């Protein structure tokens, strides 16, 4: 299935940004670029950046002044000719450039098209391909950086020493089995046992980052709940700084749940506005209530919105009873009003973080945003740098850890080396799924390099 057409896509996230990169891949990448430049002889040096004016191919009107980089086949990401146009980041402008390219004959890329070509053309392995998929799916900058790290083989690089250490354990155990007649040094049982524990720990540390990693990729799910008219929708709008939710004075206006993605310091946060919680006979409102409960169940964090101008109602208290198993914080709303009193919750809730805000003026929102992020443990994100975001990777790591534990157990029970090795080889195979296979030949070579074997 050789790819013969030339495809185009916007490679940077949609939306207003400093620059926007448009990427062409395929045999006609350069031809189409020439048409856009109105320069038939344009032959840029590969991997060098050239500054040029882009024109509308029909009218000749100048569209933008762009940096052009040419990656010559096969030394490119997809293995095909690639041209990257770094334009100014206006969505409208970018759209016009892409439209121009489509009008000349380029095809709009389907999701994953670039990766597929890279794979087909042997330019990347599956781990890299999966990282790219994450890259495409990545919704915010932190996630993009994360995906980039994985692509650079950082995961492989992190796992390689673990794999090497594993092979180092396998070698004496395997030698003891295979070369029983040889004059081999005695096994250092204590060292092997400790090493097994430490390897499992290293993998575990890496696997632990999966939760944060997944949050990074999928976004944190935050649900806003509260009594009708506590100001959830206003709060929602203020958080998003857009006018999406319908805001009225009539309690129970939000009957559906609305969700919107928000970018908090580079972390994607999916905020869901829910219907107010109260006893109601209105069937539509009751339906909304069901959705609210589901939103609570799905959420990584619940923000309870309470009207700080009134005493706590029975409905408020009922809400807290819904939150037994959930991480939540409280936004005490309407602190711009005189009747507001931050002591409304005194004696009722102590241990939960409570922030006074005004959805109307925006007061307290900095604090609220920080509190949202604080409720997630991003320690690993800061110090480790690397995170597991892909559930297949997580699964393989977990299996490798289990395998090491079973080996450790067999070793402690002083079972014969053949039992201990089962788990070690399994672990090696699982890690191999992430970093490349280890053949018996590799192990044998290590044995012969380590010990003087043979009659």
């Amino acid at each position, binding site marked *: 299935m050789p*790819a013969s057409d030339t495809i185009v896509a916007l490679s940077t996230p949609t939306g207003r940004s400093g620059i926007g990169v448009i990427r062409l891949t395929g045999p006609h990448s350069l031809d189409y670029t020439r048409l856009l430049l109105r320069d038939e002889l344009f032959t840029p040096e590969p991997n060098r950046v050239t500054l040029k004016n882009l024109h509308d191919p029909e009218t000749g009107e100048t569209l933008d002044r762009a940096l052009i980089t040419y990656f010559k086949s096969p030394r490119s990401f997809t293995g095909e000719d690639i041209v990257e146009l770094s334009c100014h980041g206006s969505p409208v402008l970018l759209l016009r450039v892409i439209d121009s390219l489509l009008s000349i004959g380029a095809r709009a890329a389907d999701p994953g098209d670039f990766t597929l070509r890279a*794979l*087909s053309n042997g330019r*990347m*392995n599956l781990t890299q391909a999966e990282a790219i998929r994450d890259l495409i799916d990545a919704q915010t900058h932190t996630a993009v950086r994360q995906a980039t790290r994985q692509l650079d083989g950082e995961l492989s690089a992190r796992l390689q020493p673990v794999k090497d250490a594993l092979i180092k354990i396998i070698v004496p155990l395997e030698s003891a089995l295979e070369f029983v007649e040889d004059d081999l040094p005695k096994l250092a049982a204590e060292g092997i046992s400790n090493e097994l524990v430490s390897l499992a720990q290293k993998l575990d540390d890496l696997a632990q980052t999966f939760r944060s990693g997944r949050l990074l990729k999928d976004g944190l799910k935050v649900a806003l709940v509260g009594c009708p008219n506590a100001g959830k929708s206003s709060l929602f709008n203020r958080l998003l700084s857009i006018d999406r939710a319908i805001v009225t004075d009539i309690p129970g206006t939000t009957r559906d749940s609305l969700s919107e993605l928000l970018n908090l310091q580079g972390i994607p946060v999916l905020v869901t506005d829910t219907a107010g919680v109260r006893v109601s006979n209105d069937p539509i409102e009751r339906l909304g209530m069901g959705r609210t409960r589901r939103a609570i169940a799905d959420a990584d964090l619940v923000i309870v919105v309470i009207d700080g101008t009134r005493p706590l109602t029975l409905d408020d208290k009922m809400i807290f009873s819904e939150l037994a198993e959930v991480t939540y914080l409280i936004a005490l709303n309407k602190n711009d009003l005189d009747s507001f009193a931050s002591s409304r919750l005194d004696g009722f809730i102590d241990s939960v973080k409570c922030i006074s805000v005004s959805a109307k003026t925006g007061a307290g929102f900095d604090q609220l945003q920080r509190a949202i992020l604080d409720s997630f443990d991003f320690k690993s994100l800061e110090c480790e740098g690397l995170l597991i975001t892909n559930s297949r990777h997580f699964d393989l790591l977990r299996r490798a850890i289990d395998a090491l534990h079973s080996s450790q157990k067999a070793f402690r029970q002083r079972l014969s080396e053949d039992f201990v090795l089962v788990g070690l080889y399994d672990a090696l195979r699982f890690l191999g799924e992430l970093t490349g296979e280890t053949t018996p030949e590799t192990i*044998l070579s290590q044995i012969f390099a380590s010990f003087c074997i043979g009659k």
Partner: protein
Amino acid sequence: MIMSFDEKFDVLVIGAGHAGCEAASAAARMGASTALVTLNLDLIGQMSCNPAIGGIAKGHLVREIDALGGIMGRVIDRTGIQFRLLNRSRGPAVQSPRAQADRALYRNEMRIMLESTPNLYLRQGEITDFVIKEGQILGVELQDTRRLRADAVVLATGTFLNGLIHTGKKTYTAGRSGEPASIRLASRLKQLGFMMGRLKTGTPPRLDGRTIDWAQFAPQSGDEEPVPFSFSTNYINQPQITCFIGYTNEHVHRIIRDNISESPLYSGQITGVGPRYCPSIEDKVIKFPSKNRHQLFLEPEGHNTSEVYLNGFSTSMPAGLQHQLVHSVLGLEEASIIRPGYAIEYDYCDPKELTPFLQTLRIKGLFFAGQINGTTGYEEAACQGLLAGINASLYTRKKEGFKLSRSEAYIGVLIDDLINHGVDEPYRIFTSRAEKRLSLRYDTADLRLSAYGRDLGLVDDISWENFNARRNRISSLHKFLESTRVKRSDVLYQELAQCSGTDLGDSISFAEFSVRSDLNIKVFRSVVGKLYQSSIINNELKTVLADLLYQGYINIQENNYSNVHKYDNLVIPNNFSFRDLSTLSNEMIERFERVCPSDFSEARKISGITPVALASLLTHLRLIPT
């Protein structure tokens, strides 16, 4: 060309070493009229290196050969003079029998075995050419002008192809010490287009036992109760001997270092690659300078000779220097060398040019077995010989070939490795080469393979009857242990509890009890024997216990295996064109095309295939609508 032949056979086997003997015996017993042609009929089944058979993984191979109906196991059982089951203290899967052979008795017994085989004819002579018509083998030509006709030819020439012996700076052509090499056959193979390479192996000096100070060496005896190789052997009748262990010393090492330029291994004279697991003493000293002594085994060559094999001292140093080296070993000060050690270089053919049935892709009806395929070891050679003999015979009857999978036999692992990965040094079997070594125990070779041997016509009626009885006993004992529970109120419960030391709960099955790591097999056997209605054969109880012991591990392994290999069954269509994967490199395309994998698992195993190429293939396979 006039096609006249002096004699006509169905199958011709060239070379009567360990591969050739198995091949000829199997082909003949399967009903093919078979000629075994060798340079010297007096050296049939010669052990050209150390006089021993078996060892870890190698012993497994011999058991598998025997289970399929091969002859090596029976011959060594009749001629073995020291038997040891290796790895007794370890898990049953990695235990393996080994035996020291009386070299002359082994040859003799092998010749008797072959001569008593119907349909099998021995011929002496040197093969110098093949007769080939339209890519199909028709027969061979001998140096003495005889022409032999056959539909299938098994080539098992060992180290004889272009053999070149090195002792110090002196070299001469030879197949083994004192025997001529096959020079013309080697050049003929090259001419036919076979990819040839060069390998090397070596032997140590043989000493006169009457000149050794035995008191300086530690004796090593065989097992009290020898474990035979063949499932049909009940007793080992040969008187058993003792071997001895000694060590080299710094003095020996210094002489080697001072004279290293005399060694053809280090002077650049030898280009062939040697086996890493049979290093010469020069290699050991140079590569492991921190080791101040190396182990030596003094192995008597037989009952009726004083010749002693100095195992561990393989060398190609000049003969004069070998004297000096030997005399520097404690206890060998006065020892005289009967035959000096030497290194030998020989040609092999790239086994990647073979089908799974060991037939060459170039010439129909031509099969290769043994060292010509780049392997080392008698057992490795013998199992290939058996498979090549079986397939040559099937081929003459136009029947489908016979092969074994990696998961059912070490033989399957060995052949699969050879044809997929080729060799870059002499290939030896190891248990770690088998992904499923826990399931490939030496004691279950017959349970795994005898049914195949029977179907092929290689397992005789008596052996088959014995096998079936054994299989039934094992399976009923297994069922009994699993189904019999001992309750706290039972008298036997106390006996079990006493020998375990921990609480056994309200009731426990024999099977559950048996997997405890502190099992005392004698006590267990006597307790089980009180309830079991038939008698329990010790090694059969051990087999059942091993099955129970490994079951959990094997299950886990199977699960993991199936998860990891989830794409293995993706089918590669017959008409799939690797050239259409636009950007596979030519090298990758050639590798794929050479093997023509029928599914992803086969593609995955091709040697030298890069992960990127596999990912590319996988992407395309997943795009193919099913």
